[in-house]
């Protein structure tokens, strides 16, 4: 949550609630939204770390709100974030361990394990298809996020198929 908030602040100063709304608008309703409490906590930490600085703005009928801006160190942190490439996702490690250990433990049949796992992935795939259908069509960022999740799942399913071919 730290770096996405910093990246949002690169556009200009904002207060916590505005940042929450900006994230929601960008990633769509499907994305699990951080609650406002998490955002305030993260902003507090970023301020302590010297990456942002806050300023209280008086409001006539409400309590003061605090707006944040990036410091020079914060700008550098965002630049460094974009400079780095991102680590690739990992194979579903826990399932792989189960599968690898099944013949040794003697408590599970590998093919049964694969079939059960496939059912789970297919159900999730179905849920993602439904999500893509309900998400706004022209929210390209949100649609791409869902499509990305589907393609990862597709790869997991292809890999299950390979496991089944080899182990059957």
């Amino acid at each position: 949550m730290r770096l996405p908030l910093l990246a949002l602040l690169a556009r200009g100063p904002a207060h916590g609630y505005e940042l929450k709304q900006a994230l929601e608008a960008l990633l769509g309703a499907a994305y699990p939204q951080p609650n406002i409490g998490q955002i305030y906590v993260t902003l507090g930490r970023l301020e302590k770390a010297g990456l942002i600085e806050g300023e209280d703005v008086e409001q006539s009928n409400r309590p003061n709100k605090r707006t944040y801006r990036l410091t020079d160190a914060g700008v550098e942190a965002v630049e460094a974030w974009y400079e780095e490439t991102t680590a690739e996702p990992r194979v579903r490690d826990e399932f792989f361990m189960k599968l690898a250990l099944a013949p040794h433990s003697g408590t599970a049949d590998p093919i049964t394990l694969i079939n059960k796992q496939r059912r789970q992935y297919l159900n999730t795939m179905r849920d993602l298809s439904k999500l893509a259908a309900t998400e706004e069509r022209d929210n390209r960022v949100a649609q791409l996020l869902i499509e990305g999740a589907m393609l990862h799942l597709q790869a997991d399913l292809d890999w299950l198929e390979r496991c089944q071919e080899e182990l059957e």
Partner: protein
Amino acid sequence: MRRSRPAPDTPPEPAEPAEPVTEPIVRAEGLSKTHHGESTPVHAVRGVDLSVGRGEFVAVTGPSGAGKSTLLHLVGGLQRPDAGSLWIDGRRVDGYDEARWAVLRRRSIGVVFQFFNLISNLTVADNVELPALLAGTGPKAARAAREELLEELGLAGKERSMPGELSGGEQQRVALARALVNHPALLLADEPAGSLDSRGTREVLRLLSRFHQRGQTIVLVTHDARVASAADRVISFFDGRIADDAVLGAGPRRPRPGGVAGTLELKD
């Protein structure tokens, strides 16, 4: 089809009455097919039992070479089984010759292929109307059915186009219209999105789902899990056999914190 045991004081039911409500559209027992090519024989389908109920949307998935397309071809009479029995809509059809299969397909089975298989020197309108005319529908009714389907499939205005002038997604929608023009009891689709981009795939899936919601029975073969997940039931086919037969949306699942959205969660 299994019959529930009659209660002791009710008279026994007559043997094998026609029961259109519960009779599966497809029933196969011990279906087998071996391909004899130039190399060693390939046992594409090995003793498959299958039942597809009215209104079901079933996807058959598996790696290439698993025999899933052969299975679909057997069900549609495009290939003949070496052994086993097959019933379509209650009628035993495994002994049918080519002529009887042609009539059955015209009336009761629509087929969609990966490469559309449209007649390239006929217009879109003629491609769709032809099977209706062959089935004995009058020209006026065939035209009306064609107009309605093309409209429904977002192809209004393309009637005079030749297939080669259309995108892949559009050609597949024409193929879908052609397959559905005689209101078949069963729609078979062999990798219907196999040569489409993701936009074309989404469009074809959306249309298949829509026809399914109106009661169309669909059996679809695909290697693509995204396509398979549009179905209500997924059969995993390996090495000529059914390895798993799963109804989606049923049975216990490991709950994921935050629901499906959890799979979307980005990490810091």
